[in-house]
């Protein structure tokens, strides 16, 4: 690894690390999602500073160039991030489902006790075509 590559990689990793901490500090990013970012940027910094470790890791996975190892690491990080998001989105969909159902039931009770006729919701924004599955 040339000195240029090293400086550039460290610079990027340090910026990502500081940015992540700053976002958490400002409450714009939850701690839950910051961990993966912090872990990846820390690992990058360590591997660049301890170049022998990076070489050992490169030999271990059978790669030729140490930069390949770093790239593989970043791709792995992106995959993990996507999986984390997919899991979270699935959970959020479940929660939205429960809320919509609960709201429908509560709204019925409310309208019944208020003695009003069925209050009809205002027309909704047309959902995207892929949701019109009925």
């Amino acid at each position, binding site marked *: 690894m040339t000195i240029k590559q090293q400086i550039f990689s460290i610079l990027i990793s340090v910026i990502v690390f500081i940015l992540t901490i700053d976002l958490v500090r400002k409450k714009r990013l939850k701690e839950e999602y910051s961990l993966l970012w912090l872990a990846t940027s820390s690992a990058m910094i360590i591997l660049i500073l301890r170049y022998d470790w990076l070489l050992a890791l490169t030999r271990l996975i059978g790669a030729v160039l140490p930069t390949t190892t770093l790239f593989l690491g970043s791709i792995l990080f992106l995959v993990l991030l996507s999986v984390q998001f997919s899991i979270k989105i699935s959970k959020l969909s*479940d929660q939205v*489902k429960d809320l*919509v*159902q609960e*709201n*429908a*039931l509560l*709204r*019925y009770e409310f309208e019944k006790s208020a003695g009003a*006729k*069925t209050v*009809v*919701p205002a*027309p*909704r924004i*047309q*959902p995207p075509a892929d*949701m*019109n*599955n*009925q």
Partner: protein
Amino acid sequence: MSDTIIIIPAYNEEDGIGQVIRDIRKVNPDIEVLVINDGSVDRTAEAAAAAGAIVLNHNFNMGYGVTIQTGYKFAYEKGYRYIVQIDGDGQHDPSFISQLLEPVRNGDVDFAIGSRFLWFDSYRPSFSRRLGILYFRKLVTVIIGREITDPTSGYQAFNRDVMKFFSTDIFPYDYPDADMLITLNLAGFRIREIPVRMYANPTGKTMHSGAKPLYYMIKMTLSILVTLLRNRQLYRR
């Protein structure tokens, strides 16, 4: 109060829903009718309320499975003992409601599903649709070890035990048909098919168009496979 409720999931059905409810009430005047309006952009809710149904409203379009589950939760909370589920587009002939309910009320089965293929003059769906149904028929029949001729039928009747079971997170709300039957079978519920008359969809609207059927089949197959891989403990009641 009757111990039975008829639930109709509805999405943009303002033209037909009133007639469907009136037809149901003609043959079953004592049974309460519940329409779950799944965030329709037309006046489905008004039309259903005007025809005398109880109406529940979703804030936005959530899909068929979520809509029927809202109905199950309502029925369970209100203490109903039996549910009949029927489509809001007039495809299902309401005069078969009592035939569907009978084995469930007698306690012979927990879940009765209407089959268009067992009734002699039901309409025959298009070739591609039949092919899809045939695929799921074979799949479900192999998995549960008993012939089910119309596993994608939405015309059903079931008791409070099934209602309770389906009100939990186990309910496959993405595409609850073939998968639902397998889930029920795993949980040890008794299922029976009842011959019913179904008509062609008068509005011509269908969820199965374009590339969707293929996506539907792949997703359903995946869903069935993971259902089988799931821990059996989940299905304990």
